[in-house]
């Protein structure tokens, strides 16, 4: 069953006009904000496909920026998000590209501050549902709809076991897990979808496990 709740049908409550081009875009922006862990000071936002053609009329641009400011889909401030972000000193640039993409509603975001940067690709697949398909060069399939943790680690034996042991110790159930790496022995990424949000101390414990480089999360 693709749809499991009556609130997938009667809902979400959202700023119009489009569940895919507005609500979905806000959710991708917010996932980026969550993964970066703080408000960025700059954002390069590149639209592809239908997003590139219609982003102004659908408010896709303000919605993505609203998400970066941690607004949910029903936050009326989304309409003024670009102005609010600019007033806060966040530098925002939009680009349209006509490169062929797998999904018509695709956005690439490069966000960061003076010391860190992050690049991700998100797609909006309909009815407000989204997926993050690329993070810092890694391919992944992450829906923004569950609490998730993303762990950058060195590709060494024991790294995955160390993480799952910490989760098991705190009785946290894993819903789905995906592992990918750039090359044997190089940087790798674990994506873990959970049934619940994790406490900061567990995040801390994960960060200090063997071979772990960085932990970020998407909260529900």
């Amino acid at each position, binding site marked *: 069953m693709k749809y*499991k*709740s009556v609130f*997938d*049908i009667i809902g979400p*409550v959202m700023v119009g*006009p489009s*569940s*895919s081009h507005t609500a979905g875009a806000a959710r991708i922006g917010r996932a980026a904000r969550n993964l970066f862990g703080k408000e960025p000071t700059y954002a390069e936002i590149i639209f592809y496909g239908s997003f590139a053609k*219609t982003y102004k009329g659908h*408010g896709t641009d303000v919605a993505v920026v609203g998400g970066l400011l941690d607004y949910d889909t029903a936050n009326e401030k989304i309409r003024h998000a670009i102005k609010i972000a600019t007033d806060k000193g966040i530098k925002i640039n939009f680009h349209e590209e006509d490169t062929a993409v797998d999904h018509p509603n695709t956005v690439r975001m490069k966000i960061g501050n003076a010391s860190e940067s992050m690049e991700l690709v998100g797609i909006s697949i309909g009815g407000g549902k989204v997926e993050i398909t690329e993070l810092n060069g890694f391919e992944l399939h992450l829906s923004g709809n569950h609490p998730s943790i993303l762990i950058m680690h060195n590709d060494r034996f024991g790294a995955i076991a160390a993480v799952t042991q910490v989760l098991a110790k705190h009785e946290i159930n894993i819903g789905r897990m995906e592992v990918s790496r750039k090359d044997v022995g190089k940087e790798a990424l674990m994506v873990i979808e959970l049934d619940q949000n994790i406490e900061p101390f567990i995040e801390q414990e994960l960060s200090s496990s063997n071979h772990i480089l960085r932990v970020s999360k998407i909260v529900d």
Partner: protein
Amino acid sequence: MFRTVAELISITENENITIAEAMIRQEMDIHDRSREEIIGQMEQNLSVMEKAVEDGLKGAHSQSGLVGGDALLLQEYIKTGNSLSGDLVLDAVSKAVATNEVNAAMGIICATPTAGSAGCVPGALFAVKERLNPTREEMIDFLFTSGAFGFVVANNAFISGAAGGCQAEVGSAAAMASAAVVEMAGGTPQQSAEAFAITLKNMLGLVCDPVAGLVEVPCVKRNAAGASNAIVSADMALAGITSKIPCDEVIGAMYRVGKQMPSSLRETAEGGLAATPTGRALAAQIAGNNVTKE
């Protein structure tokens, strides 16, 4: 758990409960949530819909300027007492249009089942409310009943224009509304299913062809058609008319028709009204391009 309309109807008959109650019980079972929580969340959605209609009737306009103000025109027209199709139907149309005008103006709406089709369910609900004077609980039940039918469509076919054309989006929304109108008016669960089938049959084949790719033209007026269709079909079912093709088979037909629809007629703005000379000219104007005369 119900997967088809036939299963839904048999649950209501075996347990002697309403469709809304069957939906509430399923939601409690699957998600392990309390009745109060679920009803509370639905009441919030109802309040969002009420507010959207209220705002739309004051006049809302989209940024592109393609849509806005029609809900208000209709309300003024109703007041003249000259309406031909009847005040209740026109009131539903006006309130559906109001919701979609607010949506196009980036106001807050509740997707039912999508943003583009958000007008049909509240349009029908708030018009019928004036006649039937339901309690708040009955209005919340209206949304659960709509949701139960939408749930079946979403899992057996599709509910977005990009996937199955406007028949999947406004077609589903209108049919959901019509089933809920029947229940609120005191019809049986089977009559709700008949109304659903009749409405969806009459929306079958409808393409998704938005001018400039925006949720404006013809989406706002399609919601007007959806809301009126919902009320007329509900009356037909309440009069005792049945659908020769059973509800689940109509949903199956909608799915197959959607699968056969070319991508140009599924929200890409490459066919239908979007591809008319005026549709293209409006799109160019909105994109800020110069339109050269040939």
